[in-house]
C-alpha cells in the first residue's frame, strides 16, 4: 500500500485495523486510513463494499468492534455521534436525511445546533452558505421535502457546513443526481475547501469523478481496503482502471 505521508503534518483522523459490523454481520475488516488537514480524500468501491460503514464509524454512529480510532491523536472511545459533531466532524449522510417537515432555512439552522452560537452569528453562517448555493437561498422558506434531489443535496451539505466542521464526510454525493448538478456541487465543494481549508472525505461510486476531485483515494473491496494512493497513482493503476473504469 502506498501510504501518502505529508511531511510535517499530523493526521486529524487515524483508523488502525478497524473492524465493525451490524449485529452479527461483520462489514469491515482491518481498515486503516489517515486523513490530514486540508485535503480532499475519496473513498471508492462498489455497492456493499463498506464505504458507508466507514463514514458511520468516523461520525460515531457505529462503534468499533476492534482496532483504533484516533481524532487529533486522541483515542475516540465511547463517543456518540453528537459528541463528535461537537468536535467538528459533520456527516452528510446517504439519502441526505433532511428534516422534511422543516423549511430549508430551519434545516440549515439545525446544522448549527451543536455550536451554541448567537442568532447573529448563525445568520452570518447562513448567508455564507447561501453564497455558495444561491439555488437554495431562493427557496429558504420552502419545506425541504418539496425540493428537487440536487437542491436537497445542497441543503444537506449546507447543513453540514453550518456545523463549522474541520472534517466534512459526504456519503454518495452523486447518487441519483443529474451530471450537470453533480459537477456544480463538486465545483462548489472545491471552492469551500480552498476557502476554509477543511478536510473533506467523499464517498463516491463514480471512480473517475472521485479521482478528478480528490488528491488521494482509498479503494474498499468486501470490507477491506485493497488499494490506496494519490489519485494519479490510481488512475495509472491498470487493475483499478480495468475493474472500475472499464478501460
Amino acid at each position, binding site marked *: 500500500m502506498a501510504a501518502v505521508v505529508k511531511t510535517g503534518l499530523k493526521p486529524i483522523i487515524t483508523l488502525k485495523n478497524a473492524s465493525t459490523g451490524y449485529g452479527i454481520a461483520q462489514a469491515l475488516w482491518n481498515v486503516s486510513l489517515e486523513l490530514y488537514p486540508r485535503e480532499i480524500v475519496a473513498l471508492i468501491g462498489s455497492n456493499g463494499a463498506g464505504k458507508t460503514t466507514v463514514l458511520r464509524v468516523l461520525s460515531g454512529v457505529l462503534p468499533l468492534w476492534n482496532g483504533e480510532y484516533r481524532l487529533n491523536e486522541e483515542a475516540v472511545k465511547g463517543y*456518540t455521534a*453528537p459528541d463528535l459533531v461537537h468536535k467538528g466532524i459533520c456527516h452528510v449522510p446517504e439519502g441526505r436525511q433532511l428534516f422534511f417537515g422543516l423549511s430549508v432555512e430551519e434545516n440549515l439552522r*439545525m446544522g448549527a*445546533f451543536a455550536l451554541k452560537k448567537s442568532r447573529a452569528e448563525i445568520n452570518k453562517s447562513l448567508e455564507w452558505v447561501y453564497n455558495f448555493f444561491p439555488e437554495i437561498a431562493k427557496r429558504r422558506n420552502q*419545506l425541504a*421535502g*418539496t425540493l428537487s434531489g440536487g437542491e436537497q443535496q445542497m441543503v444537506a451539505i449546507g*447543513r453540514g457546513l453550518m456545523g463549522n466542521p474541520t472534517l466534512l464526510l459526504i456519503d454518495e454525493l452523486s447518487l441519483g443526481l443529474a451530471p450537470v448538478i453533480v459537477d456544480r456541487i463538486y465545483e462548489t465543494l472545491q471552492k469551500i475547501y480552498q476557502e476554509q481549508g477543511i478536510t473533506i472525505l467523499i464517498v463516491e461510486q463514480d471512480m473517475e469523478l472521485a479521482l478528478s476531485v480528490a488528491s488521494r483515494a482509498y479503494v474498499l473491496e468486501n470490507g477491506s481496503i485493497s488499494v490506496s494512493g494519490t489519485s494519479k497513482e490510481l488512475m495509472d493503476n491498470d487493475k483499478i482502471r480495468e475493474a472500475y473504469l472499464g478501460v
Partner: protein
Amino acid sequence: MDLQVIINGILLGGLYGLAAVGFSLIWGVMNIVDLAQGAYLTLGAYITFWLFKLWGIDPFLTLPVSALILFGLGFLIESQIIKRVLRYGFVMLLVVTYGLNLLLQNAMLVAWSADYRSVTPAYSGAGLNIGGVNIPYIRLALFIAALLLVGLLTIFLNKTRVGNAIRATALNRLAANLVGIRTEFIYALTYSLAAAVVGMAGSLISMVYTVSPNLGGAFMTKIFVVTVLGGFGSLPGAVLGGLILGITEAFTASYIAPGLMNAVSFILLVVILIFRPQGLMGKQFYGA
C-alpha cells in the same frame, strides 16, 4: 341546536385535548403508543385528591406538584425501562407500556383501594348563567387551564432550543444525532414531559370526575380517539380532536343515549380516518 349541549361539549373537550397531548407527543416523537398514560393520569388525580383531602390545598395549586412527581416518574420509567426496549420495536413497546399501566393501576388499587373519591372545593357548585345557558365556574376554569397548558407546551416546542431539538428528533432521529442533538436525552425528556402533562390533566379531571384506580382506563379510550382524530404528533390537532369528541359525546348523551357515547365516538373516528387517514391536522408536525 341546544346551546347548552354545545357549551358542555366544548368545556369537556378542552380537558380531553389536554389529556391527549402527552400521548400524541410520545407517539409523534418516539413512535410509541404509550398505554401507561392512563395510569399517569390517575396518579395525577390521586395526587390532587390527597393534597386536598389531607392538607386542604386548593386543587389548582396542586398542578405543579403533579407535574413534578410525574416528570420524575416518567424520567425513571423511560431511562430504566422504555430505553432498553426501544430497539425491539413497536409491538414490544405496546406490551411493555400495557404492562406498566396494569402494574401502576394495581399498585394504586392496593394502596388506596377501589373506593370512589372526589375533590370538592368550596367553589365547585357555583356557576354563571347567561341567557339560560349554565356555565359552572369550575368547568370554565378547567377549560381555560387546559388551553393555557397546551399553549405553553406549543410555545415551548416551537420557540425554544430544546423544543427545536424535540421537533427535529421527531422528524428524523439519525439526522438529529448528526447535527449534535443528544437524542437519547431528548427521548427521556419527551417522555417525562408527556407524563407531567397528562398528570396535570389528571389533576384537573379530579375536580369534575370521581377518582378511582380505573379513572385513567376510561380516559385512555378518549385519549386514543382524540389523538387519531387530530393527527398524532400535532398539539393543535389534539385540542381540535378533544373539542370534536367533547361535542360529539355531549350530543350523543343528550339526544341519543348516554350508553352509546363511545360507540358514536368510534364511528366518527372511523369515518374521519376513511377520508383523512393522517387525522385532521396530522401533517403539521411531520410536514411533507
